[in-house]
Structures are given as C-alpha cells and as structure tokens.
C-alpha cells in the first residue's frame, strides 16, 4: 500500500509517456506524430521534476533571514529549463520539415509520402 502512494506520480508519468509513444508509432499524420512527441517530452520533464521534490519543501528561492527552511532540489529544475527550450527548438525544426514535405509531396500522411516515393 505504501508503494501505491510513494510511486503514484511515476505511474502517471509512465501513462502519459506511453500515450505519447502510442501516438508516435500508430499515427501516420506527421503533425500528430509531433504532438505525440511533445506529450512524451513533457512526461519526461515531469519525471525529473518529481524526483527533485522533497516533501515539506518549498520552491528553491532563498528566503533571507530564515533558518532551517527545506528547499526542493534545484538541479532537476535547471536541467529541465534547458530541456524545455531545446525541446521547442526541435519541435520548430520538425514542423518546418513537415511544411517542406507538404510542399514537395502535397501531403503530410506518412503512407501517402511512401507511395509517392515508390511511384517516382
């Protein structure tokens, strides 16, 4: 029973991660794939943030003059800040590629692009 409460956050994260993964592998539409990739990415962010949490802690901003305040671990926060920004730039690049594929093939569905490739 104690396992249920102490690992509940991880399980939600895994469900989200698998939702994103399913979207990526099962859908043919490329924009949809990128949305799935975003969901996956956010779930990884949440996993890291979950690990940085300390029960009873507060946000890691130093309160001057107050002793024995528990702060949550700031290091995962720093990592994830960087990861979010890098993530959005990869998303932008992926979407630009989708626009290019649309220009070149006239479709953004994966199987139609493959069919077009074979035909050419």
């Amino acid at each position: 029973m104690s396992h249920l409460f102490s690992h509940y956050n991880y399980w939600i994260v895994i469900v989200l991660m698998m939702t994103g993964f399913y979207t990526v592998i099962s859908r043919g539409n490329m924009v949809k794939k990128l949305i799935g990739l975003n969901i996956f990415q956010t779930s990884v962010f949440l996993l890291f943030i979950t690990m940085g949490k300390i029960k009873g802690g507060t946000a890691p901003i130093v309160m001057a003059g107050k002793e024995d305040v528990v702060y949550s671990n700031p290091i995962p926060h720093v990592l994830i800040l960087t990861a979010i920004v890098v993530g959005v730039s990869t998303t932008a690049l992926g979407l630009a590629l989708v626009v290019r594929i649309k220009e070149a093939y006239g479709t953004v569905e994966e199987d139609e692009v493959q069919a077009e490739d074979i035909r050419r």
Partner: protein
Amino acid sequence: MLVGTGITIIRQQNLLAASMLSGIYSLLSACWMVELDAVDVAFTEASVGAGISTVLMLATLALTTRSEKKPVHKSFLPLFVVLATGAALIYGTLGAPPYGDPANVVHHHVAPRYVNDSYDETGIPNIVTSVLASYRGYDTLGETSVVFTAGVGVLLLLKRGKRSKREEKK
C-alpha cells in the same frame, strides 16, 4: 486530468483541436510543476510549451492541412508494444526511490552545496537562476547556440521551398 487530455489528443482527428488541446495539456503540466515546487520550470513550460509551441503548430496547420486521414489499417501491434513497454517501465519504478523522501540519493550529492552556498557566492536569491546563469553559464551558452542552429535550420528549410517554386515559374 492530464491523462484525460492526453487521451483526447490521440483520439482527436481534427488537428486544429488536437493542437489546442496540446496547449491545454502544457498548461496543466505547468500547474503540476508548481505543485512540485518547480516554479521557474512552470513559467517556462507555460510560456514556451503552451504559448510558442501552440502558435508554431497552428502556423504549420495553416500551411498544411486541418484534419488527419483515418488510419487505413487498425493494427494492434502498436498498442501491444506500448503496453509491454509501459509494464516494463512500471516494473522499473518499483526500484525507484519513494516520492518526496529527503533521504533520496539525488538530494545528497551536489544539491546541498548549491542550496547552502549559492546565495553567498552569487548574491542571487533564486537558486535555479544562480545555477543556470552563474555556475552552468557555459551550458546555457551552448543551449542558446542550439536554439540558434534550430532557427537557422527552420529558415533554410522554408526559404528553399520558396526559391524552388520561383524557379519552377521561370
């Protein structure tokens, strides 16, 4: 609620609605991050994830198509793969440290030093900012160069398309 939004996103065939929902999803995850004491990350997620990503998605949709085609084959292979991976990951979490315990290994390596000394060394009350901009400044520089590269990549990709069209017209 997050899980609900996520599942609605996959079932949604209207891509416009799906990208709006992904904005909502980002906002909800930002709320969860505030709950987990990561206020800086929540700010970034709300502005970048819910704001910029959604705008980019909408721009792409404007340039491509609004709705996705129905999947031709309904195969259960992806679902099976996903369930298998999920089960393996949940089995993996059983060995993970319990949530929020101050005795976890993560909190005992370099984190206490930042928490205790960063204010005296940098004078910035926000520990996340002081680590990001001061101790790990070079990493942040590298991150900026990644963003720059991505921006250049996007511009090059979109420019090339236009030029080839112009040549076709000639």
